[in-house]
């Protein structure tokens, strides 16, 4: 199957990646050959075969609803690229217009 440029761009958006100019064509061709290769699975008769997503097929492994000791803030923030007190500081994702729309 040929992965069209537009499909590759869609996948880039979904995976939050933006390939450089030089990389795109090469990768597009590689992915196309891989998808071609993976199409061999179409020759397998999977009629009435249940998918196996996990070797153990576990169900509802739960624990008691009791709080446990977790990381103190200092340790949790130790690798933060940017911090403000006990907060992780991140680039702004909402603009003023978004706030206004939300209020009205």
């Amino acid at each position: 199957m040929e992965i069209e440029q537009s499909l590759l761009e869609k996948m880039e958006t979904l995976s939050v990646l933006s390939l450089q100019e030089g990389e795109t064509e090469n990768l597009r061709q590689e992915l196309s050959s891989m998808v071609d290769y993976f199409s061999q699975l179409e020759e397998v008769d999977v009629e009435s075969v249940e998918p196996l997503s996990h070797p153990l097929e576990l169900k509802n492994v739960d624990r008691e609803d009791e709080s446990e000791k977790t990381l103190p803030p200092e340790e949790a923030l130790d690798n933060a690229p940017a911090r403000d007190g006990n907060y992780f500081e991140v680039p702004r994702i909402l603009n003023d217009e978004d706030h206004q729309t939300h209020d009205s």
Partner: protein
Amino acid sequence: MNIPDHIYLHANRLSDQIQEGNISTEAVVEESYRRLEKTEEDHALNTFITTCEESAYRRASKIDQQLEKGINPGPLTGVPVAVKDNICTKGIRTTCASKMLEQFVPPYDATVIEKLRNAGAIIVGKTNMDEFAMGSSGENSAFGHTKNPRAEQHVPGGSSSGSAASVASGVVPVAIGSDTGGSIRQPASFCGITGCKPTYGHVSRYGLVAFASSLDQIGPLAHRAEDCRIVTNIISGKDQHDMTTTGQQVDKQNRDIDDMTVGVPEEFFGEGVSAVVQETIQDTIETLSSAGVSLQQVSLPHTKYGIATYYLIACSEASSNLGRYDGTLFGARESDMSSTRTSGFGKEVKRRILLGTFALSEGYANQYYRRALKVRRLIKNDFEQVFEQVDLLLGPTSPTPPFRLGEKTEDPLQLYESDALTVTCNLAGLPGISVPCSQTDEGLPIGLQIIAPAHHEPKMFQLAEQYETDNMP
């Protein structure tokens, strides 16, 4: 003081010598760094990303003090261990061989690290690997490739490249790796040492940086299957931090090799498996047969779909797992998430994320991801049917001897094919071990793989240890 190989390279013997007071733990740690320095000076193998002398000597001092007080620190007392750099070590940088985590210092230890420390082992450093465990050659690291100590123009295999090379070059007796599609067994085979992947669920993945959560398992590499068994025993166990652990213990059961039937899957000798590998393993089969092992030919009909099934599932899971690397809470950060991820990840990682994203996307998920899950069940069924007739399976670990550095970098699919004989084990969640078998005329190692039914590690280790005793110096 130089410790001779016949003691130093065997965890069991080394630990005994330390416990008996013949060697101090401090001397052993010194020995490991002396060996590492010499190896890198003479061969520049690039096996380690980080060494942790300070913490290693501190631990050594504690252990020596315990011994003086008559306390037994554990079955791995003083044994220096190298750990693959995708396993979290508190206070010690853990990079996954990626620029994305180049400065990341975990605030906690992986469960396996705690267990190793509680057994008296000393972590001496974090080994090089393929980035985020994605690779089969050791050439995908952001910190440079690792060389094969047995053949320096050739790859050591991957993704546990540094772990395998650190054992094979005699720097440490034991290393820890991870295996998602063969990443312990294949480098063990390529470097002429032993490496095993336990049954899925035996060893906690808490603290293992996730690649494909339904396939990843942590396991040991060493010179002998006996050491692999001892370490597997120590690192296994139910863990409340990893809900996929089963708590089934591994221990040696006395079982005569003569009572076992070993199956040889015909598909492990098919197209794509090189002549020298086929001949070598066939010779081994004849040797085992003369030694009294009962062998029979069996079939795993869906083997040829293993690569396609594995890569579709692994890349899909990876595309989800690696979504966390966005510069928000830890790791590299650029001006926006897209730049962070595009420059933080290497080429192979990006390739796999895109492939996985495609396989899971609307309009394609049924045809690719879901279909792969169904073929996964058929692969698992193949094994279950065959294990009704035989106790174990045997075959080559890798379709070829170790290839040259750079030989397969242009064609990623060709590189993926080198996992053809190891991936089905991960898909079915079964235990597998690679033991050194022979070498080509050029001295390139060839490994023998033994696969057991789920939770039947004792039989697997039994055959591996007997084979090594009979065939290795």
